[in-house]
């Protein structure tokens, strides 16, 4: 048998084939020739959104006044979380699992926030990047039988995370900020066809799922269970998942909150991901639905300096206590007849969204 080095080499190179220059060039909007940004193949990126920027800037000024740091309850006993989850489980309706038939795809639409960096590349690491928050509609078509696809569309306009970042951007000639990371994206399929409906079997099922990188085990299982709820679990399965979530060590009730993107309200359940971050789910108890999955700052490492670009790690900069550093808001799930097709009963996507209120704005941080 080959030695471990060789096996690692073979595994990595065979599992992820090379990206060719031709592939990159063909997907580039530059290749389109008219100078306008368009959607990339496989949802590569969002088209021109300059028209919404001016409106977004006005909206941001209003929305950011509504920031309320997330309330983290520390004195609520775990039993309270179990009670809330049990109540939500009891209210689960009679929805069937969303399992794609032949040729069909599970379609899930969410609103996703992220913090991204761009820059000219002079200097090493973060010193060459300016950072900004964006919010995107993410549509995922997944299937157990076919390769899925994803589509990302930037909505609401970007926002620099600090005046320093905006100054760096201006020093580079104020290039148009385009949505990043839209090279298709992984279409992870949540197979609910084998998801148990009994609480007693859910734990073993979740334990078999791949762990999430960088998370504590309880956080990983908490997020995975929430993911199944978002991705087509039946009412019975949701009830079982909710009751299972109550058994995850460290899950606590943390009051109520309003989703950053959709403004839907619900009950907050939280579990520690790390000493600095709490993973929270806003739950609509009446519909046993996950409204929002959010990452909230609950600790700041000593010695952390001001925000970007002076962070300890790429993209990790000092947040204020209680800030929501990123979120995923659930919008819709259904079955689509083909990859790329939107189910007929899916609600229309609003023309624009206010940018989520992840961070307090700093002077001079608004785009453009």
């Amino acid at each position, binding site marked *: *048998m080959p030695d*471990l*080095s060789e*096996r*690692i*080499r*073979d*595994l*990595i*190179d*065979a*599992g*992820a084939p*090379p*990206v*060719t*220059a*031709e*592939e*990159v*060039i063909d*997907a*580039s909007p*530059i290749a389109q020739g008219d100078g306008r940004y368009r959607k990339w193949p496989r949802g*590569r990126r969002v088209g021109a959104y300059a028209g919404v920027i001016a409106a977004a800037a006005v909206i941001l000024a209003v929305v950011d006044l509504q920031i309320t740091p997330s309330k983290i309850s520390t004195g609520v006993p775990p039993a309270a979380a179990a009670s809330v989850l049990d109540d939500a489980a009891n209210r689960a309706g009679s929805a069937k699992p969303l399992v794609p038939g032949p040729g069909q795809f599970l379609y899930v639409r969410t609103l*996703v*926030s*992220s*913090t*991204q*960096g*761009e820059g*000219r*590349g*002079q200097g*090493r*690491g973060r010193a*060459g*990047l300016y950072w900004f928050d964006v919010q995107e509609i*993410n549509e995922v078509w997944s299937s157990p039988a076919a390769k899925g696809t994803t589509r990302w569309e930037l909505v609401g306009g970007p926002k620099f995370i600090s005046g320093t970042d905006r100054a760096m951007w201006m020093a580079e000639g104020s290039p148009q900020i385009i949505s*990043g*990371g*839209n*090279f*298709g*994206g*992984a279409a*992870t399929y949540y197979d609910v066809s084998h998801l148990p409906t009994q609480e007693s079997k859910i734990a073993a099922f979740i334990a078999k799922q*791949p*762990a*999430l*990188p*960088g*998370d504590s085990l309880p956080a990983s299982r908490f997020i995975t269970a929430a993911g199944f709820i978002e991705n087509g679990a039946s009412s019975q399965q949701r009830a079982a998942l909710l009751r299972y979530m109550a058994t995850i060590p460290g899950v606590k009730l943390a009051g109520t909150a309003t989703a950053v993107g959709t403004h839907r309200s619900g009950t907050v359940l939280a579990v520690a991901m790390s000493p600095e971050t709490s993973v929270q789910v806003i739950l609509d108890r009446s519909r046993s639905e996950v409204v929002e999955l959010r*990452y909230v700052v609950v600790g700041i490492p000593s010695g952390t300096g001001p925000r970007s670009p002076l962070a300890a*790690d*790429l993209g990790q900069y000092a947040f204020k206590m209680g800030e929501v*550093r*990123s979120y*995923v808001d659930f919008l819709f799930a259904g079955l689509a007849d083909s990859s790329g097709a939107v189910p007929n009963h899916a609600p229309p996507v609003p023309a624009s969204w206010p940018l989520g209120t992840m961070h307090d704005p700093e002077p001079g941080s608004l785009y453009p």
Partner: protein
Amino acid sequence: MDEDQRHQFEEFVQVVEPGLRRALVSVYGFERGREATAEALAWSWEHWEKARTLDHPIAYLVRVGQSKSRSRKVPVTFDRAEQPESSFEPSLGPSLASLTERQRMAVVLVHGFGWTLREVADLMEIKVTSVQTHLERGLRNLRAMMEVSDHA
């Protein structure tokens, strides 16, 4: 972009892509890692006048790829479902995925692809001794997990 630039970019990709892809795949797994590679190369193409002058293109583009990877959590997987005839023992991918990100990066790049500790330290922006620690712990954990899996 004219033909000369296109040609230059193709040569650039030939040189940079393997290391970039291996580094990002070690962080994110096959699918997301490859996407992040494509994203970073797309950035290079769109900013070609800047990208061509980078002193350390792989290190910089790894950061670009990371910066464009969303915060949404998806599992790191090294599954090879499309190649069931694979001669690899099935425990290698899952064992690798269960390492910490830095352990995985050190194991894949140093042990798998012969990068120097210094090169990986520059990439991670940590000390060489820290890379050594991640490597040793990663290899120890990897072997232990594969042994347990193989004998299960």
